[in-house]
């Protein structure tokens, strides 16, 4: 009989139940108390989850924490119970989610003024869904938590019920993600039919001993489609820009910072624990490296051509998801470690930028780069925070993004993709450059004032409804989260232990067999030693190159307008660009058609035989 360490096994369920109970309490009680009490209760609850997940992370870095609910521990490696398995990667994402929710709630004290307790209830439910999704070791529970966070997220997106854009964004988001969830559920059904199991460790254990079968390939494709709709891989990504452009800024923080990476996390968690023996690694590597590159290119091109600041950031999230997919798709521990650091650094920078977008909307009533030309010149702190965010996104050392990018690039080269560094440099330069261009225009009044004619095929940022009364000055509860997020991203690159912790976490993550043994047989975990160098000369050089390139991109964007029109290249370029833009139509039917195309492409990549 295996002996499970039950010392800290109560922690993962607590991380789940705190937000669920509190959200119920807030919903029942918010009418009886004043708004600050609701704010305090919700924020304190989220802070408790931060503490719990931090404790869990400290513990799980020495071995996974396995919780068999209601005492259904396996006997002789067999169990019908439901399991929560928290390893450092799952815990790290759970911690990120809790930290971002806490900061988003602090930001909302003064920001989301119209909302009463509903907003807090939904945010707490959203947190519960994310915690559950990150910590569970059961495939069906993944579907349930996927939809729990989904339902909360759809409602948060469509919260401004007077604004048609907001409602339409919520609708597109809801339909796309639910359809993705049903595809994932079909995949779960296929796997259950084949194995009679739902737990990830049990499933992996059974499938490791079976020959490759079409049903399992189909299950994998359906699961990937479901998770990567949430993970915004092209061509499943269309909902993301719509949802981000209309959701309140603190909600965007949660979407971009952690919900989208959670989709990617789920895809690779399931691959490593369940499918890694049955599916040929070559197929999977090719799939994600190609799809990741496509996603990155589509995202960064759309990012560069946006004038709505929040939509621009949303497209940059898509571009970065492409990079995460590539880095994880190398299927090595080094690539995974790079992706982890990149995700964490990106969460800080991108969240800070979304909050800056929120402050922009609160102060000037618009997030449109052209409308706001020079409007932010009188700010003293905010302009420099925006510059820091842009440079962080462009991977300037020592931001965490830069460390993650450098390690991912090395992993790409050693996995046999010599062009990987070029992709990473170009994408981070384009996205960072777009942010710097918008910052230069809005906060420094740089460049000639472009004629403000709105184009019919583009979403400007001037129609978005405010979340607040117009603010004269920025309250400290809105400024502090931005500063904390940027410092957090810096800390990931600077604090010495983070880098080796990420490597150990990656070793845990890619070892599906050890996951199975520890969950089912209580086998002790093997903690690998960190061996990758932290900052290398080449990595630093490439990081500085991308930051410099970003400044160049911003400069061309600001002052190169005249140059643009004269070049024959511009005319050549316009057609494909118009086609790409037309694809982002805001029409849910188009998006679903693309979803089916993506499903077929994934099926072709993974299922068809090839040499």
């Amino acid at each position, binding site marked *: 009989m295996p002996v499970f360490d039950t010392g800290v096994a109560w922690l993962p369920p607590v991380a789940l139940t705190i937000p669920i109970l509190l959200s119920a309490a807030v919903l029942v009680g918010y009418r009886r108390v004043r708004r600050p009490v609701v704010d305090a209760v919700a924020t304190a609850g989220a802070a408790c989850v931060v503490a719990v997940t931090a404790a869990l992370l400290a513990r799980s870095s020495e071995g996974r924490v396995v919780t068999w609910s209601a005492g259904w521990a396996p006997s002789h490696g067999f169990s019908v119970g439901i399991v929560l398995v928290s390893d450092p990667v799952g815990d790290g994402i759970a911690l990120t989610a809790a930290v971002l929710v806490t900061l988003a709630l602090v930001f909302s004290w003064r920001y989301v003024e119209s909302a009463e307790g509903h907003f807090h209830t939904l945010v707490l439910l959203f947190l519960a869904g994310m915690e559950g999704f990150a910590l569970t070791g059961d495939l*069906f529970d993944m579907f*349930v938590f996927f*939809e729990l966070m*989904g*339902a909360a997220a*759809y*409602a948060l997106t*469509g919260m401004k*019920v*007077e*604004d*048609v*854009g907001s*409602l*339409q*964004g*919520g*609708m*597109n988001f*809801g*339909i796309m993600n*639910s*359809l993705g*969830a*049903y*595809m994932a*559920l*079909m995949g*779960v*059904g296929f796997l*259950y*039919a084949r194995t009679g199991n*739902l737990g990830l460790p049990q499933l992996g254990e059974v499938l490791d001993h079976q020959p490759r079968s079409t049903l399992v390939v189909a299950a994998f494709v359906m699961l990937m489609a479901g998770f990567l709709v949430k993970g915004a891989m092209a061509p499943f990504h269309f909902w993301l*820009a*719509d949802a981000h*452009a*209309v959701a309140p800024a603190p909600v965007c923080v949660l979407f971009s910072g952690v919900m989208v990476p959670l989709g990617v996390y789920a895809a690779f968690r399931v691959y490593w624990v369940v499918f890694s023996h049955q599916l040929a690694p070559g197929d999977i590597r090719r799939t994600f490296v190609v799809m990741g590159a496509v996603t990155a290119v589509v995202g960064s091109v*759309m990012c560069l*051509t*946006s004038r709505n600041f929040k939509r621009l950031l949303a497209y940059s999230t898509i571009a970065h998801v492409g990079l995460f997919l590539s880095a994880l798709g190398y299927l090595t521990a080094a690539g995974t470690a790079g992706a982890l650091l990149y995700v964490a650094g990106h969460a800080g920078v991108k969240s800070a930028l979304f909050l800056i977008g929120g402050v922009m909307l609160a102060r000037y009533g618009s997030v449109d780069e052209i409308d706001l030309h020079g409007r932010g010149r009188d700010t003293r702190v905010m302009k420099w925070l925006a510059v820091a965010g842009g440079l962080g996104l462009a991977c300037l050392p020592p931001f965490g993004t830069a460390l993650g990018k450098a390690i991912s690039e090395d992993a790409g080269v050693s996995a046999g993709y010599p062009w990987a560094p070029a992709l990473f440099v170009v994408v981070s330069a384009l996205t960072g450059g777009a942010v710097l261009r918008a910052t230069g225009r809005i906060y420094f009044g740089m460049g000639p004032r472009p004629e403000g004619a709105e*184009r*019919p*095929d*583009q*979403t400007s940022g001037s*129609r978005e409804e405010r979340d607040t009364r117009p603010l004269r000055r920025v309250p400290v509860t809105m400024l502090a989260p931005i500063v904390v997020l940027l410092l957090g991203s810096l800390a990931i690159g600077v604090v010495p232990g983070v880098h080796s912790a990420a490597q150990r976490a990656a070793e845990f993550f890619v070892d599906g067999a050890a996951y199975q043994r520890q969950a089912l047989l209580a086998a002790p975990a093997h903690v690998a030693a960190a061996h990758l160098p932290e900052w290398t000369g080449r990595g630093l050089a490439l990081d500085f190159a991308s930051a410099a390139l970003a400044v160049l991109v911003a400069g061309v964007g600001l002052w190169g307008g005249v140059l643009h029109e004269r070049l024959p290249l511009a005319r050549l370029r316009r057609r494909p660009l118009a086609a790409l*833009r037309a694809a*982002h*139509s*805001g*029409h*849910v*039917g*188009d998006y*679903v*058609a693309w*979803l*089916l195309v993506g499903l077929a492409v994934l099926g072709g990549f993974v299922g068809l035989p090839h040499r």
Partner: protein
Amino acid sequence: MSVYAYVVSVWLLLVGAFGIVRSRNLIHAVLCLSVSQSGTYVLLLAIGYQRGASPPVFGEPATKPTFRVVDPVVQAMTLTDVVVSATVTALLLALAVQIHKRNGTLDPDELRNLQG
């Protein structure tokens, strides 16, 4: 169990998705989403079904069952799925009603707020 149920389930998923693609009305689109989801109900129930087996209900005292029963796990999953569906459908219909109130139309072709 014959292969028929599996064909039906995949058909429902696809025809629902196709319905959303072709939809000219958001309420129609949301209901198509429910049709898609019905595919998952059929699939799950078909997986657990056995011809001639009884429902998974055991009396006292809890002894080892001597008769064949259909799989209760997939039935529990289907019930969970139904609850999820009810929540999501209700929420999306509420959004559709609100869109109609604000915009006077439910045709996705006429909603032009989020492009490019």
